[in-house]
């Protein structure tokens, strides 16, 4: 949330809206959430900005830091850089042309599609695949997956693709386009319309790569609503703009599950949904699976159509994008045309991705052993309900927190009861430390405990 910490995050908890329940706590794939003083608190070092907490929050308390439409007008040339899932939100009677027109009515002077560089990028990825020793090569298309690998699978960071993202390559191409027209970069603002918080973080705080060419990001949800309003007036408005559609059929489907893997080199798998991805990476990590060449891994179910900022139903979006793709008959038949975007290979390479956290309990084996003994000892006394009442997602995480001096054993109400050391008032203090003051008082207006 704040830029002063070493890890930038797009996701933050609106403490005033948070009702202090256990939904996000239980669903965080990296166990990065604790309840403190009655509200959710995200651990910045292990949050991967996947947005699972947003999905499950009933109080709309998980917010996203993002730019607003007004800010685009600071620039003379205002580029909307859109992912294809934006068009996938609309029924087919809304043409791509109309969507572009609406974006112009909103104030953008140019529209480019993120996936325009996909055919070029995959060539670079194939070259990378041939040069690397680490199999399987893991796609970096989904920034939440890159973070997941850094946080939970540090030994697999060496398997990540070290090629710039589609967003960055397309942005390079955009600036090149403008340069040819003699326009200075200062006059250009490139705004990425994002389907998820993970891509915001990838832009604001790129892994490996140092600089970003994107000016700011705007939520796809917000833009979708604005476009819909403009569509109602679009036929009465006469607006002319440069129509430029550079996508091939394959590129339209790039962000769908399997869209990228199909074009990678060798034997490839595509896996979507964080639970599925984690299960498979565990397997890769355990058994050193090296007879698979390429893994396309995406955090969201159905990949980007399931992005947390995509308002449409993900299954319908997949279908609609498929149908849109089949309209691209002229360019298509799934094979590649010569890419219109072309950069030297070295210009799109990025430095290695490093693990984000030291794995394990401690970097020193003796200390780690002592900690592990303590954790095991505590878990003998904890009830094993994984109720979340202590403010941690499960008994094991709680025991680890206690060992790392991040929580007090007395936060567990069951332990309070069985130990019988604390008097009633004292025990209540511990509960209030986690769940906030007055949480134990009668309250008929609270948001939780409702059907």
């Amino acid at each position, binding site marked *: 949330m704040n830029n002063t910490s070493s890890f930038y995050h797009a996701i933050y908890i609106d403490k005033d809206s948070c009702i202090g329940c256990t939904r996000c706590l239980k669903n965080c794939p990296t166990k990065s959430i604790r309840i403190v003083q009655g509200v959710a608190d995200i651990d910045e070092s292990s949050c991967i900005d996947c947005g699972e907490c947003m999905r499950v929050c009933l109080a709309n308390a998980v917010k996203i830091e993002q730019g607003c439409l007004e800010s685009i007008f600071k620039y003379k040339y205002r580029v909307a850089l859109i992912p294809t899932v934006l068009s996938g939100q609309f029924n087919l009677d809304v043409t791509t042309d109309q969507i572009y027109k609406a974006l112009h009515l909103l104030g953008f002077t140019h529209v480019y599609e993120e996936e325009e560089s996909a055919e070029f990028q995959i060539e670079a990825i194939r070259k990378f695949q041939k040069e690397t020793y680490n199999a399987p090569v893991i796609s970096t298309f989904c920034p939440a997956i890159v973070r997941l690998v850094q946080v939970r699978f540090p030994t697999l960071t060496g398997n990540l693709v070290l090629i710039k993202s589609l967003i960055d390559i397309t942005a390079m191409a955009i600036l090149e386009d403008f340069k040819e027209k003699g326009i200075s970069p200062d006059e250009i603002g490139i705004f990425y319309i994002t389907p998820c918080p993970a891509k915001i973080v990838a832009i604001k705080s790129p892994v490996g790569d140092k600089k970003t060419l994107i000016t700011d990001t705007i939520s796809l949800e917000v833009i979708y609503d604005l476009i819909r309003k403009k569509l109602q007036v679009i036929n009465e408005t006469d607006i002319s703009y440069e129509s430029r559609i550079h996508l091939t059929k394959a590129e339209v489907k790039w962000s769908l599950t399997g869209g990228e893997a199909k074009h990678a080199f060798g034997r490839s798998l595509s896996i979507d949904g964080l639970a599925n991805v984690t299960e498979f990476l565990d397997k890769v990590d355990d058994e*050193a699976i090296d007879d698979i060449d390429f893994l396309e891994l995406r955090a969201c179910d159905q990949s980007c159509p399931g992005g947390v900022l995509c308002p449409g139903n993900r299954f319908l979006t997949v279908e609609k994008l498929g149908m849109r793709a089949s309209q691209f008959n002229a360019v298509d038949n799934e094979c590649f045309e010569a890419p219109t975007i072309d950069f030297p290979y070295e210009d799109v390479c990025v430095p290695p991705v490093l693990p984000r956290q030291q794995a*394990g*309990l401690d970097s020193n084996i003796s200390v780690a*052993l002592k900690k*592990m003994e303590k954790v095991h000892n505590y878990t003998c006394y904890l009830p094993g309900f994984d109720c979340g009442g202590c403010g941690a997602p499960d008994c094991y995480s709680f025991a680890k927190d206690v060992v790392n001096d991040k929580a007090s054993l007395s936060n567990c109400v069951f332990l309070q009861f069985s130990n019988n050391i604390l008097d009633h008032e004292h025990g209540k203090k511990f509960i209030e430390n986690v769940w906030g003051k007055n949480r134990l008082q009668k309250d008929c207006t609270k948001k939780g405990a409702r059907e």
Partner: protein
Amino acid sequence: MKFEYKVQGGNFSKAGYASSDLKKILKQLNVNPAIIKRVVVALYEAEVNIVAHAYNGTITIDIDDKQVRIVLEDQGPGIPSIEQAMQKGFSTASPHVREMGFGAGMGLPNIKKNADVMNITSKVNVGTTVEIINYI
């Protein structure tokens, strides 16, 4: 720190439980991944041997800051000639065990290769004890 696991002969679906648990433990302790790999391979082979050849067994693992010491003790037919059993390719695996994809006669040699210390004692019709030590 000590850990104990029970192993049941014939239960192939559970074979590998102890070795994958040990892998998680050693990861938590930040043991060098190359060493983890060796320990886990050695334990896995020994674990499968109980499942494939014996009736039941117990695995005890003792970890300190210098070494991982694993002892697998089983009740089973025992091994008549350890020297012969240690040879690459020697196997008495039943057709059923072969059907499960085991029986290449590579398990014990593989343990030898991956362990820093390996000791094996056996009594026919009583059982077998395998000790595996890896320095960390």
